[in-house]
């Protein structure tokens, strides 16, 4: 991997000042990745990449500009820096704009085990073997698995370097490994259903067994065969862990500073008040070891941390970067996230709903008639009002048992009421992505079908 050059970052910061900037930040990301895919047992694709980009934010007082470039020779960079400073000069002064308070930069950075030191990028042969194993397990699981969209193994590593003109600089490296498989089941009438499953981790040795990934994907495809619509009705909805996690992402979006100061969130003015049922505890943990969403410092060089977002149903904090914190007259929370060349935005780090005491079976068993939702499609979540309406698929529950698969239905409600009516939480939390949840049940939602 191309090494990042701390000296180049320092040079860029001093050039920015020389061109008239009063403050500046540099973010460099270097990344390398490979992907290998098989389909129906045959090699389908190989991909490899390397990238290195530099992002710059400059301030002239309270005016700022962002820019990014891949042209990293000093000649091109000098013109790029001068242009960026000029752009800042044309931007309106915004009293809330600026670097974060220098006193908030951490003195020491935690070691978070974000990179797998014992395993580099997975080569084509090994990656193909893993993908083949997963797909073969899926294809062999049942004669009704008749086709496949393939299996893919990806791995990547990256290095991040961030420095600003008030003396903070930090670096970290990370790695990711991901195996996904998408078999297709077909019933006698020719109708097809896809099942997708994956495993992902920062450490190669902690991935799930590829055969298990393949079998799980097959099971998910098979159980959708014969899915039908149901009558329109109001009923309890049990969210499987991945679908429940999507609700957490919507909540985090509404709790993030930029949505709040724009008035574009249903959580405006709700800090300290009850936003979820009393059994709901949601944490944001940026310093979890090897967490997919962990980072030793945030997108503005502030310390990351572990904190409750919701505790016993009460909204304990918003998620803030320096800008939105100033707008809301609060302190930044270490949740600035950054893409090269963009101004900071806000995101959760590792966000999770604290597990409860029920097994998924007990939760399903508590429902006389309702929906177990395993698929959600579309973008029908309105963060401003909390109105929620999405396409859904899953299993219909009759007398506490999964009775038959359903599809072409929607579930609708309002996130404000949905979080307040979470009445059972599962014990099946598993970390596969930065935002995770156990199974959960919402008392009642409108289900539209026939």
């Amino acid at each position, binding site marked *: 991997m191309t090494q990042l050059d701390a000296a180049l970052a320092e040079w860029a910061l001093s050039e920015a000042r020389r061109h008239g900037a009063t403050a500046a930040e540099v973010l460099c990301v270097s990344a390398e990745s490979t992907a290998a895919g098989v389909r129906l047992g045959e090699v389908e*694709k190989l991909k490899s990449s*390397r990238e290195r980009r530099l992002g710059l934010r400059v301030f002239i007082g309270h005016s700022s500009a962002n820019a990014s470039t*891949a042209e990293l020779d000093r000649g091109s960079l000098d013109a790029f820096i001068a242009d960026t400073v000029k752009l800042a000069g044309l931007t309106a002064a915004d009293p809330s704009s600026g670097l974060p308070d220098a006193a908030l930069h951490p003195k020491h950075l935690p070691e978070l085990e974000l990179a797998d030191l014992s395993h580099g990028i997975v080569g084509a042969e090994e990656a193909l073997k893993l993908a083949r194993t997963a797909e073969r397990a899926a294809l062999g699981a049942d004669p009704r698995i008749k086709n496949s969209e393939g299996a893919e193994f990806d791995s990547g590593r990256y290095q991040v370097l961030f420095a600003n003109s008030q003396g903070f600089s930090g670096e970290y490296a990370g790695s990711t490994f991901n195996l996904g498989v998408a078999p297709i089941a077909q019933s006698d009438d020719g109708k*097809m259903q896809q099942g997708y499953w994956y495993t992902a981790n920062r450490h190669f040795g902690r991935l799930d067994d590829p055969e298990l990934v393949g079998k799980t994907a097959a099971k998910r495809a098979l159980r959708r065969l014969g899915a039908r619509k149901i009558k329109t009705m109001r009923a309890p909805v049990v969210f499987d862990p991945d679908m429940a996690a999507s609700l957490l992402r919507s909540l985090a979006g509404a709790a993030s500073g930029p949505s709040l100061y*724009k008035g574009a969130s249903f959580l405006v003015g709700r800090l300290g008040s009850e936003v979820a049922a009393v059994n709901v505890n949601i944490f944001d943990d940026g310093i979890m070891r090897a967490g997919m969403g962990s980072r030793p410092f945030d997108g503005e060089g502030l310390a990351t941390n572990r904190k409750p977002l919701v505790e016993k149903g009460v909204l304990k904090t918003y998620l803030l970067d320096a800008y939105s914190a100033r707008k809301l007259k609060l302190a930044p929370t270490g949740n600035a996230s950054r893409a090269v060349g963009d101004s900071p935005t806000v995101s959760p780090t590792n966000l999770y709903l604290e597990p409860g005491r029920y097994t998924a079976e007990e939760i399903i068993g508590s429902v006389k008639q309702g929906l177990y939702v395993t698929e959600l499609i*579309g973008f029908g979540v309105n963060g401003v009002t909390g109105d929620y309406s999405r396409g859904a698929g899953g299993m219909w529950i009759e007398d506490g048992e999964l009775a038959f698969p359903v599809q072409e239905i*929607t579930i609708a409600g309002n996130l404000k009421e949905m979080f307040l009516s979470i009445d059972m939480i599962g014990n099946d939390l598993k970390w596969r992505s930065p935002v995770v949840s156990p199974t959960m049940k919402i008392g009642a939602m*409108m289900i539209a079908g026939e």
Partner: protein
Amino acid sequence: MANELVKPDKFFLNRFGMNEGALEQILGSALERRADYADLYFEYRSAEGLSLEESMVNHTSKSVSHGVGVRVCAEDRTGYAYSDEVTIDRMRMAAEAARAIADHRGERPGAVQVGKPVAQHNLYELESIPTDVPLEERARLLKQIDELARAYDPRVRNVMASVAAERKLVMVVNSDGQIAADVQPLCRLNVTLIAEDAKGRQMGAFGGGGRVEWSYFFEGDRWKEYTLKAARQAIINLEAVDAPAGEMVVVLGPGWPGILLHEAIGHGLEGDFNRKGVSAFSNRIGQQVASPLCTVIDDGTIANRRGSLNVDDEGTPTSRTVLIEKGILRGYLQDRLNARLMKMAPTGNGRRESFAYSPMPRMTNTFMLPGDSTPAEILRSVKHGLYAVSFGGGQVDITNGKFVFSASEAYLIEDGEVTRPVKGATLIGNGPDVLTRVSMVGNDLELDSGIGTCGKDGQSVPVGVGLPTIRIDGITVGGTRA
């Protein structure tokens, strides 16, 4: 920069110190094993954005990116490698990585001779692009939008307006010896605002653009139209009642509601899914999949549209493809790989987000041809139903055909009259049969204003859609009211 606008192929050769001999060598190296095809894709993109919030133009950004991708195809296998360092060395490394997909055995193809130009369209030759316009002038327009929106109604609380413009230069050189190069400008103006009253808050959004000059936004006061439509939507939604739940008659307004075609039909007709037999439309060419009133087209050759291209990202000129003719399924959207494997002709639909991806079959501008009914007749024909005029995003499950799209502005139809506004709701249907329920097609075809972005397999590309007013006799509406 004027010369670069005229001769994009020379731009790449000059800027990165390449010559045709070097390209031939790298393609030769890519083809060292038994491959069917190889290509090099060069891209240089510069983009600028500025935005207004709380009546200040307080955010500006600029980016430059470039890179090269090397692709090797052998039968149905693809090797792809890219680098953002455009040097002969890096390209040779990429070629070595990409050719690993091909077998060792068999004969090597003959030497490549580069230089055959591709006959391409000329759909967006512009005198200047919006980033050439002084920033102050662009900032002034954003401030005018802010003032106009706030003057529209005192309940308008916050206005967010942005303008984003880019210029992308691409060059594709392939193992058939063809060279295609293009300059692709793209611009988009967006208005999003929040309205608030004692009962709550609502959002409204509108925007538009295309492969156009800055003056486009002033022709017919387009910027005012965008602003007022966004403001009206937010204000109307303040009064919205809960949407109904269940299956009912739905009338879609003209233009952007064409997202229905994109989700329900278009994706399912992309060549890759059909070659693999994983689409709900697989093996259905020649069958009836829509009412005889429906003819659906994908056309990448409409001048200045957001979804249009002179050549696709494999160097094939774009075309007009009939997907559904009077209800009968006629064609698929193809890139080179899938066309070759399906023994069909490429349709100019091989697209990619950037040099970081290999191309796939994608839509360009997808729309339905107009029919004979007037919009008023269509609305009058409905006793009880939903009239949806604006949408957020949509999504489809290719394999089972189920698709959704979410209304952001909709009204009840009661006894043939458009009555109360209802809250946004998701509509869900089944791609292969939703168009069989189209019972009336309006004479008012409109293309959308130029805001569409399509995501597939992690890649985003700009697209367009279009629709006349249509009546669908039954689709499930995901409201909250029983």
